[in-house]
Structures are given as structure tokens and as C-alpha cells.
């Protein structure tokens, strides 16, 4: 059994600060009593002299451009749950230990990820991508790992024998016991956990209560300490409050990328991929702006999703500056893993084609990119249709090789007539024809035309027709390219 604890020291601050790359003085305040007190500061505000426990007014006196936000404990709990869901890609058991810890059972993951050092490095880098900084410690019991992580020690203990020795060096304040217990132990002259181990157990139970001793036993591994495993939710829903209202798409992309990194970790843990994302930007005094991103093929590649999101955000017009960004994904598809090969194969090409289509559509708009398909209809303007690229069908009975022009006009153009023969940049001479097309009486678009191939003095080959009715007007329908 090997447990890894992630302790998020700066969680109240990171909930807000991870949405932007700028570094300005920022502090979080909680109004527990009548006055608002600073609870967490970032490095810039600490340099100016703002400390935890200071009143907000005093902090503003020290740094006039300090931004103070109210602590959001619900957001902190949500963050811990999302990190636990994200961490399921490294292990199959994770647990949330409030207020600031996430525990992972990594005993079974060491072989896959190449050892404990590599695994901790990957987790640390992944958390940095998400915007969090955590201290990581490993121990055979969950409570011991939590204590080491709280102390900020980057320690990895594999064997229970070293555990007792290392645990003994930790100060008693980490155990989080009641103030009168702490005062009593201080009067006894006990300051570290190791000294607690040397005290007689019966006397300790009588004076301090069974709970204290049970905690010590759980940390050492003498008593079982089952932790409820975290069950990830079926859908993904993440929100990021932005510390200041933003309008530029580059800043929105930064925040959006954090959320996409969480989504990709969530999908890796579940072995799924997504085809449709909805993004919601909240504004003050205005309804949310909603953006839906639909992909041609289900994917869970972070770079590709970031590219598509970047193009989308570049085209987006915001009515007001955004104060929060939220990402939701409801439907997931199983992700089919494929084995890599040395030669580029058909699967690769289909995937790159899908990516190209998505990229072009994200930048230019959905209707600008299309494919062509042929329909079975004698009327030339109804014999083709725009469709999804890749779904074009060749007609079952192919037309003769040169009987149809390569360019078709959207609407046939009326030709002038001179001496009862049609003209288009000069009198036309008919080369081939007539081909009579008369059909379509059943849906109201009845056509009755005689088609000819004609050449004009400038040597262009044109496809013209004459209407088969009383007036017999001439029209130009296409050009042989």
C-alpha cells in the first residue's frame, strides 16, 4: 500500500489566480467576524507587506492596488473534487480529504508510470498545467502522507519501519487536536510526535482521550484507516471565476486552456473522448454568452482542442467583459486506442482530414467548407448538392466523359440574340447537340430544354440551352473548364 497526498497550500488563492497569467497583487479575504480578514496572499502582495490575519483596510493601506476577493469555499470543495477526478488517470483509487488534500493510492500504478519519481513528476507537471501548486508526499498510510504533505516535506517513504522514525520528527501542531489538548501537551513538554510515541499508552488515553491515541495508531498503520473512494461524476462541469473582467480572446484562451486540461485528464481517466463542448461566459448584468464547439470526430487531444477553441474565441464578439468562464461536456464516446506504426496509414490520413475540416470551419464558419455529391436527377441544377466533406457519392450511372461542363452557373444567364442565333461575347456557333432534358413535372420545377455545346469567337466552350416552349429563349448554363 502506498498513498500519495497532494496538499494544496494556496487553494483559496489559486481558485481565482489560475485564470490569468498576469501577476498583480491579489489577496483573499474571509469575513468570519465583523471585520474582513486576509486569509491568503500571493507573492506580490506578500512582498508589499500584506500578511494573513491582517484586516483588509490595513492591507489596502500597505498596497493601494491590491485586489481583494471574497473566499469561495464551495469553489474550493469543487476544485478538490475535480482534481480527484483528474487524478484518476494515474490511479484507480482517489479520495478527497477536506479542507485541502487529495489522496491517491499509487501502489498499483508504479510499474506503468515508471517508478515513483516519474509518477510524482508527471503529477506535479499536470497540476502546474491546471494552475495548481501542491506539495506531494508518499507514505504507507494515508494519514501519515497527509501529515508529511501538510508539513511541506517532499518525502517518499516506502517501508513502515522508516515511517515511525520520520513521523517522529513532525511537530504536534500538524495533528490538529483541540486547543486544550495542545495546551496540556505543551505543559508536559511534548513538542513532537516522536515524544508522544514514547509516552505510556494507558496514561495518554486517560488524560487525552481515545481519539488522540487512535489518530496516532492510524498514522503508524496499527489501526485501519479506510478512506471513501471518490466516484467521478458522469458529466464534466467546470467553472473558473476570473479575477478581473476580461475582453481579449487571448486572456480567455488562457483560462479556457486550464479547463480543457482538466477535461482531457477526466477523459483519460474514463477512457473516453468528446465530440461536443459547450462554453459559457458570464457577464455582469447580462445573460451568459454560450458557445458550442462541435467536432467532426471525437477526440481527447489537448492541443487540437486548444487550437479549435482559439479559432472560435477569435471570432467571438462579447457584449460585455467576461467575469467567469465555464466548460461543460455531457456526452462522451469510448476512445478507441490504436497501435502506432512506422508507416503512415489510412487511419492517420482520415484523422488529419477531419482535423483540417474542423480547423477551417472554426476559423471561417461552418458553411464555408463543404463537399460535393452527385444526385440522380436529369435536371442539371438538381444533379449536385453540397454535403459534408467526405460523404460525396459518385452517380451510379456516370455521365459521358465530356457531356457535362466542369463549371455550372448558379443561375442560368439569358443570352442576347442576334439574327436568331444566340450571342455571348460574340455570335455562338453550335458544335454538338441537341440534348433534350424534359423532366420534373412532379415537383413543380418542370424543365423542358434542349442543350447544346457552343463556341464563341474567343474560343470558350459554353453549355447553352434553349427552352422548349413558344418563345424559345436561349440561356447559358455552364462553361467547359
Amino acid at each position, binding site marked *: 500500500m502506498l498513498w500519495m497526498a497532494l496538499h494544496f497550500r494556496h487553494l483559496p488563492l489559486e481558485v481565482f489566480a489560475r485564470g490569468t497569467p498576469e501577476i498583480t497583487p491579489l489577496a483573499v479575504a474571509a469575513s468570519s467576524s465583523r471585520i474582513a480578514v486576509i486569509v491568503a496572499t500571493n507573492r506580490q502582495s506578500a512582498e508589499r507587506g500584506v500578511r494573513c490575519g491582517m484586516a483588509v483596510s490595513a492591507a489596502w493601506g500597505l498596497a493601494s492596488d491590491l485586489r481583494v476577493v471574497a473566499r469561495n469555499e464551495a469553489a474550493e470543495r469543487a476544485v478538490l473534487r475535480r482534481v480527484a477526478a483528474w487524478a484518476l488517470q494515474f490511479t484507480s483509487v482517489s479520495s478527497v480529504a477536506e479542507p485541502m488534500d487529495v489522496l491517491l493510492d499509487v501502489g498499483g500504478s508504479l510499474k506503468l508510470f515508471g517508478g515513483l519519481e516519474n509518477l510524482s513528476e508527471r503529477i506535479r507537471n499536470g497540476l502546474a498545467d491546471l494552475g495548481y501548486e501542491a506539495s506531494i508526499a508518499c507514505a504507507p498510510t494515508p494519514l501519515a502522507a497527509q501529515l508529511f504533505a501538510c508539513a511541506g516535506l517532499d518525502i517518499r517513504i516506502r517501508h513502515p519501519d522508516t515511517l515511525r522514525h520520520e513521523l517522529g520528527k513532525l511537530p504536534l501542531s500538524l495533528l490538529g487536536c483541540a486547543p486544550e489538548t495542545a495546551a496540556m501537551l505543551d505543559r508536559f513538554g511534548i513538542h513532537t510526535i516522536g515524544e508522544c510515541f514514547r509516552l505510556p499508552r494507558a496514561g495518554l488515553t486517560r488524560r487525552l482521550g481515545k481519539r488522540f491515541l487512535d489518530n496516532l495508531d492510524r498514522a503508524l498503520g496499527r489501526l485501519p484507516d479506510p478512506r471513501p473512494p471518490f466516484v467521478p461524476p458522469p458529466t464534466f462541469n467546470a467553472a473558473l471565476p476570473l479575477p478581473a473582467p476580461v475582453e481579449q480572446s487571448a486572456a480567455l484562451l488562457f483560462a479556457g486552456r486550464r479547463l480543457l486540461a482538466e477535461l482531457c485528464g477526466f477523459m483519460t481517466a474514463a477512457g473516453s473522448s468528446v465530440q461536443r463542448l459547450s462554453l459559457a461566459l458570464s457577464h455582469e448584468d447580462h445573460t451568459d454568452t454560450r458557445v458550442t464547439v462541435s467536432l467532426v470526430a471525437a477526440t481527447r487531444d489537448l492541443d487540437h482542442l486548444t487550437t479549435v477553441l482559439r479559432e472560435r474565441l477569435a471570432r467571438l464578439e462579447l457584449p460585455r467583459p467576461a467575469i467567469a468562464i465555464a466548460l461543460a461536456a455531457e456526452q462522451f464516446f469510448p476512445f478507441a486506442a490504436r497501435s502506432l506504426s512506422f508507416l*503512415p496509414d489510412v487511419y492517420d*490520413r482520415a484523422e*488529419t*482530414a477531419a482535423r*483540417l*475540416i474542423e*480547423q*477551417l470551419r472554426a*476559423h*471561417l464558419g461552418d458553411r*464555408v*467548407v463543404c*463537399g*460535393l*455529391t*452527385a444526385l440522380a436527377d436529369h435536371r*442539371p441544377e438538381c444533379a*449536385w448538392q*453540397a454535403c459534408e*466533406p*467526405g*460523404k*460525396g*457519392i*459518385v*452517380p451510379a450511372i456516370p*455521365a*459521358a*466523359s*465530356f*457531356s*457535362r*461542363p*466542369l*463549371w*455550372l*452557373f*448558379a443561375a442560368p444567364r439569358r443570352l442576347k440574340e442576334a439574327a*436568331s*442565333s444566340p450571342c455571348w461575347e460574340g455570335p455562338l*456557333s*453550335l*458544335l*454538338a447537340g441537341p440534348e433534350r432534358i*424534359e*423532366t420534373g*413535372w412532379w415537383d413543380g420545377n418542370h424543365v*423542358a430544354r434542349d442543350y447544346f*455545346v457552343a*463556341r464563341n469567337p*474567343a*474560343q*470558350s*466552350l*459554353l453549355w447553352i440551352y434553349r427552352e422548349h*416552349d413558344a418563345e424559345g429563349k436561349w440561356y447559358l448554363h*455552364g*462553361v*467547359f*473548364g
Partner: protein
Amino acid sequence: MPTPSLDTVFNHPAIWRGNDCARVALPSVPTGYAELDILLPGGGWPAGVLTEICRERSGIGELQLVMPAAARLSHAGRWIIIIAPPHIPYAPALAAHGVQLSRLMLVRPEADKEKFWACEQALRSACCGAVLMWTDHSREHSVRRLQLAAERGGALAMLFRSSRAIPLVTAALRLHIGKSDGKAIVRILKRRGGGIPAPVALDLHGKLAGHGIPVRRSAPAYARSPAPTHKSRL
């Protein structure tokens, strides 16, 4: 020492004669027209470089010139991407020339900048076999980006321009298409390997005859026929 004869001197590979095409190893796609293939270095449309096709007006055979190569590429599974065509490419005609419609993509952006952006993305992607674009815009910066993208992706890049537009400096192959006497005259203005060969006359539309449509040698004056009393319907 016997002097080498003049012929053996000229056949030496290091000697280049003024109107020869130097043997250049270029990955190429056969054009489908044997008379044109002989004149092109590499024996076909060069891949990974820009090809510029100038024509006086549309409708004299410029699209048809690239149809055999496009059909070959689409059957090999590569995509053909048509950007900003002057009119609608007619799907049944494309299919009749052999192009697989399931590998055809049509992109119709409005602005020149968007056309060049789409062309660059398409050339860079590995799935693309040929990109056909119609534009008269010739800013050197945008065109150079296209050339870099073409080198990276290795696809055919065909730019159709009017002959009044400023010629592109970075194009590796430049052709001019004119029409005379019912045949398309293709003149190679610039190619890798040097030399300006004589123009080639290709009978692109001569195959009109003999495909089920009766060909008329002379054009009769088409008199207005009286309205029929009973229209027969299909």
C-alpha cells in the same frame, strides 16, 4: 590521344544545352497528357512547390488540364481541395472525369486573407494531395508562406490567375493557357531546370465527339419551331 567526338561531349551529364531541360529529380504527379509530361522536369506536376497557371479568361480548359492528376490523387486517397473557384464545380462532370467525390472539399471564403489562410492550412496538412486556388492577389509575403507550407506538406499547389496579374516570383512552374483553332495552347513560361520550350497544343475538348451527342459541322440558323400541340412528358 584521340579527341572525343562532339556527341559524347554533349551527352555528358554535366553539360547543359540552352534549350534543354536539366534532369531534375522532383517528386511529381503525371499530368495525364504525354506531350506535356515530356516538357516538365520530373515528368509531371511538381509536388511541394507552387505552380502558377495563367489564362486570359476562364473556360478555355485550365481546370480540365489538372483533372487527370486530380483523379489519380483522389483514387489514391489524397484529398483535393478547391478554394474560391469562380463558379460552382459541377459534381457530375467531376465524377465523369474520374475524381472521387468523397475526397473533394470545397472552401469558399470571402476575403483574400481568408483564402490564403485556408490554402496554407490545407497545404500544410498531410492528407491533402492537391490544392486549387483562384486568386489574383500577389502580395509576396502571403505567397511565400504558401510556398513554405507546400514544401512542408508535399502537395500540389496550383494557383490559377489571370494573365493580366503580376506573375509570382516564387512559383517554380508557370504555364500560360491560350486557345486557338479549337485546341488549347499550353506555353511553359518558367520551369525548374531552365529553358523555354515550344508551346504544346493539346486537344482537350476534342473528345466531345463520339460520346452520344451528335456533332454538327456547321451551325444551322435555328428557326423558331411552332409550339407543339401536345407536349410529351418523360
